[in-house]
């Protein structure tokens, strides 16, 4: 990777990488690890980019895959090494956005399943159903229904009806 590669090919998409990594982490330290790992994987896999999809779609896909992989690893580690009394899902106090409503929304998103988190993030990023399906690797027809269900669930979480 030339230093230009990061600036020209990753940095313009840093926003979505940050948003995705935030949805899968609970601390600044984890977030930075995830972000770096995503950048590293993009650089490592850049030769595999076949231009069959847009570069941005490809970045979304890598970001998502890295986040899901790291989350899985983290869960395994938690199961093996951390006592049950410590909840891995607790969000650190210093790990917050300046906007309080956004923090509440993120907390709610973190309560969703891994795939639902990805679906809703991509939806909120105004990706089309086709693009979401392409990134996640599912049928576009199911995405609309899924988004509606997730939004209902998020609303319930935000209204405090479910934990």
């Amino acid at each position, binding site marked *: *990777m*030339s*230093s230009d590669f*990061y600036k020209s090919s990753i*940095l313009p998409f*840093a*926003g979505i*990488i*940050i*948003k995705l990594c935030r949805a899968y982490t609970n601390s600044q330290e984890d*977030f*930075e690890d995830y*972000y*770096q*790992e995503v*950048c*590293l994987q993009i*650089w*490592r896999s850049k030769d595999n980019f076949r231009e069959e999809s847009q570069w941005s779609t490809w970045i979304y896909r890598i970001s998502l895959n890295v986040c899901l992989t790291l989350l899985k690893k983290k869960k395994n580690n938690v199961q093996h090494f951390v006592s049950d009394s410590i909840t891995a899902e607790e969000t650190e106090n210093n790990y917050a*956005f*300046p*906007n309080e*409503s*956004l923090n*509440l*929304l993120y907390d709610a998103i973190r309560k969703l399943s891994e795939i639902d988190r990805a679906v*809703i993030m991509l939806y*909120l990023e105004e990706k089309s159903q086709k693009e979401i399906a392409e990134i996640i690797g599912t049928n576009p027809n199911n995405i609309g229904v899924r988004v509606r269900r997730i*939004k209902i669930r*998020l*609303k319930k979480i*935000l*209204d405090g009806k479910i934990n």
Partner: protein
Amino acid sequence: MEKSIENIWREGFVESDALVAPKINNLYNQKSIHIIDKFKRMFKINLIAIVVFSFAFLFISFFVGIPITGIIFFVTLSALVVINKKLLNDLEKIDIGISSYQYLKAFNQWINKQISINKRFSKFLYPIIFMSLVLGFWFKDAEGEPLGERLVSKILTGFPETYLVFGIPAIGIVIALIIIGLLALFGGQIYKWDLKLVYGRIFKKLGELMTDIESLRS
């Protein structure tokens, strides 16, 4: 909840400091460690493969009646493995805690040393392998007589004027010497082709990374 989640999302990220990309200083460390780890892994696998092959070939050579080839192969490849194992130990001594630039520099120096030693060794390795094959088949038992001697008898029957040196046709010795000479001459080059084939991609990435870090330092 009053606002829709779409609005919360949109408004939340309007504030400029909501999306600050973390510094990626550590990225170069991760990348260099990744590249070097990958090389170490491949290097170890390569050495293990050579050991397995030399044992297997030694075993097979006794069965097919060319034990001389098997023994020479085994001894030569064992020497190759011992030399490269020592080199690998030097590689393991590189301190992972130093900066990525120093780490890559140290690795690069190690690579150059490794290439230089193996290039010199290859000038002997390929001729020895060729000679071991010639000797193995020469002394292979062919109905109670070494195959080489049997072959010479047949040649002498067809060409009685053939000039012999120590019972071997001179033309055969000349051809063998030419092949040995060429293998010795191009042994280093053959090794470099082999190296490029196995580790080419890693070296390319390493080169890119070095250039990248150097451009950041300048």
